[in-house]
Structure formats: structure tokens, C-alpha cells
């Protein structure tokens, strides 16, 4: 610890020197980061770069939730996992990688599926949540849990050659349900495992998720709340668009909503979205 009030040890000052030199970040930004805690749900294509950059930058406590195991066909995009970890839990693999780049932060392994039964308990220990999952029911569940607990949510998605990014439930801004009160038809809900994704596309979005989480945690800049970034990798075009405000009619965050912890725990997200929370393995038949 330190007697300078910023909580940065001499070792940290050396490690994070390029952050401390930045006038718009500096000692205060790094000090805020070191005191913050961030939960990343999903250690896959989005979570891989998000976790590495969050660990490297010095977030004080970093939680990882996933129930999946590392497979060879993940490695084209999930750059946090190595061949040596095929067959291991993604959380153990990701945690080991994070520790190897920064042994000075606390890394918490949640080797379980994120469900209504454990979501409140897990999420309540963190300041900021990063949604790096790959399916519709998880996105509603994580959003609602963030609303119930009052946590900002950095939400990213990638499929094919496209990516999307925004910050929900931040500082009076809209939540996921404000934008999407009714779930899409199941036929419109493709997953990377079904439809493919160019590996570096979640790479770009995952890095941007880390950036937004860092901005919120260190209290710098303007987070991407009430705005959405739309990324088209093939044409190298990016749009940042203005979103609607928080909806007073929203079933999660609206004026008369007041979603309770009990209601959240009893809500059936698979039934609501008519989609399973877990992915079934891919049957590929190319030849």
C-alpha cells in the first residue's frame, strides 16, 4: 500500500507508467481502476480480448463467469485460450492467462452457468458488468439483473462480419429492454456456432467493451450510453448512432416497473425468448 493517498505502490507506478503519464487519465484514473471490480460474463470470442485488456490495465478485481470448456474450434477467435487448455474449463484457462499478464490483481473464477439462481449473488460483488455471452435469453437475464442491482452493463455482440456495442443502464440511460421489449423470433437469433464469425470481429468489439468498462471504472470520458456502435468489417464502415432514452414503459427499468430480486429469480428467460441458455454442439458437414 501507499502513503500518497492514491493507493499505487512503486511497482504499480512502474507497471502502469504509460497510463499515469496521460493527462486525461493519470494517477486518479489508475487509482479508480485499481479500486474497481468488473464481472465479465462469457470467456469466449468477446470475453477473450476484454479479459486480457481488463487484467493488463489493472482493474482491482476481475470476475469471469462461464460453464463451457475450451474446444479447438474456439481458438480461431478466442485468443485467451491456448491449445494446451483444450478440454479445460474456459474460466480456468482465461484466469490463468489473466494472471500471467498481471499477477497483482484479484481474479475470481465462477465456473458455472450464469442463471437466475446465482446471478444476483455473483453480480452483487462487482461494480460493472460486461456482457460477452452469445445468446438471447442470457442477454435479457444479464440486463434485468443489472437493472435490479443498479450496475452499468457494457454489452457487445458479434456475428459473421458485423459487431455491435453499447452501454446499458448507465446514468439514467436506456436498458436492453427499453430497446427490445419483445424478444425477436427464434428464427432471427443466430449464434456464432451456427452461422460463423470472422475471428477478429469479436476481437474488435471485445477490445471496445474493455475500453468502455475502463472508462466507467476510471471515471473518464463519455461512455457509449444512449448510443450504439455498429461495425461492418467487410466494408470497414462504422456508425455510431443515437438511441432512444430510457422508456417509462420498460418492464425492467420503467417508472412503474421496480423489478424485484424475487421477480427476477422467478422469471423464465428460456420460455420468454423461446431459446435455450446453452448452446448445443455444432454438427459441421462441409465435405
Amino acid at each position, binding site marked *: 500500500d501507499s502513503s500518497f493517498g492514491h493507493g499505487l505502490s512503486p511497482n504499480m507506478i512502474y507497471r502502469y507508467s504509460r497510463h499515469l503519464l496521460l493527462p486525461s487519465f493519470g494517477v486518479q484514473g489508475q487509482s479508480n481502476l485499481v479500486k474497481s471490480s468488473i464481472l465479465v460474463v*462469457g470467456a469466449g470470442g468477446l470475453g477473450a480480448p476484454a479479459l486480457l485488456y481488463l487484467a493488463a490495465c489493472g482493474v482491482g478485481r476481475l470476475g469471469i463467469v462461464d460453464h463451457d470448456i475450451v474446444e479447438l474450434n474456439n481458438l480461431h477467435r478466442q485468443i485467451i485460450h491456448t491449445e494446451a487448455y483444450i478440454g479445460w474449463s474456459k474460466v480456468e484457462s482465461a484466469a490463468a492467462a489473466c494472471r500471467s499478464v498481471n499477477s497483482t490483481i484479484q481474479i475470481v473464477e465462477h465456473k458455472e452457468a450464469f442463471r437466475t439462481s446465482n446471478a444476483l449473488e455473483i453480480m452483487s460483488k462487482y461494480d460493472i458488468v460486461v456482457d460477452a455471452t452469445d445468446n438471447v435469453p442470457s442477454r435479457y437475464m444479464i440486463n434485468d439483473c443489472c437493472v435490479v442491482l443498479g450496475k452499468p452493463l457494457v454489452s457487445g455482440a458479434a456475428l459473421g462480419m*458485423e459487431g455491435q456495442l453499447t452501454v446499458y443502464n448507465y446514468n439514467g440511460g436506456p436498458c436492453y429492454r427499453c430497446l427490445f421489449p419483445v424478444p*425477436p423470433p427464434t428464427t432471427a437469433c443466430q449464434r456464432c456456432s451456427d452461422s460463423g464469425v470472422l475471428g477478429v470481429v469479436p476481437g474488435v468489439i471485445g477490445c471496445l467493451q474493455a475500453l468502455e468498462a475502463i472508462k466507467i471504472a476510471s471515471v473518464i470520458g463519455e461512455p457509449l450510453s444512449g448510443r450504439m456502435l*455498429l461495425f461492418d468489417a467487410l466494408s470497414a464502415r462504422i456508425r455510431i448512432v443515437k438511441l432512444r432514452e430510457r422508456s417509462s414503459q420498460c418492464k425492467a427499468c420503467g417508472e412503474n416497473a421496480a423489478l424485484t430480486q424475487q421477480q427476477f429469480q422467478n422469471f423464465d428467460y428460456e420460455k420468454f425468448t423461446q431459446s435455450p441458455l446453452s448452446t448445443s454442439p455444432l454438427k459441421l458437414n462441409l465435405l
Partner: protein
Amino acid sequence: MQLTLEFGGGLELLCDSVKIHKINVDPEAGVEKLTMKHLLAWVRTNLIKERPEMFMKGDSVRPGVLVLVNDCDWELTGQLDTTLEEKDVVVFISTLHGG
């Protein structure tokens, strides 16, 4: 009226995989202004080649589709009643869930 329409997030698959469409569309006979409501009907008739239920539901877009008029959520511009002007850019994008 000249408009640019863009489809993304998979919706382009409904229009021959073409993402950007420069179109000419006029208001309904006897009406002065071109609204989003009329544009949606026009798109369904002229651009959507397959599975129209993946684009529309009733007279609006299906759940999970964001509509942006000049980079602004159509909830802020009046949804179906939004009046379009020459050279406006309208984006239809399906929200993604993958990772």
C-alpha cells in the same frame, strides 16, 4: 424522393445480400409527405425478396430490428409517423446476439 437504405445484422439476406440501396420513392397519391409507414410498405413490396416475416410484423418492423433515420433511433423521430426528406439515410439493423 431519393433515399439511401441500408440493411445490416443479417437483414441484407432478405434483399439479395445487398446492404446499401439507393432508391427513388414518392409519397402515396394524394399525400404530400413521405412517412416511414409508407416507406416500410414500399420496402416490403420492392426490396424484400424472401421471408418478409423476418423483416415486418403487422405494419411495423419485427421485434429485434432497430430503425435509424440519419443515425438516430426512429423512436426519437416519430416511428411510423417520421417524415422523410430528400437524401435521408434509413438503416434497418437486426440486433446481434453472438459472441
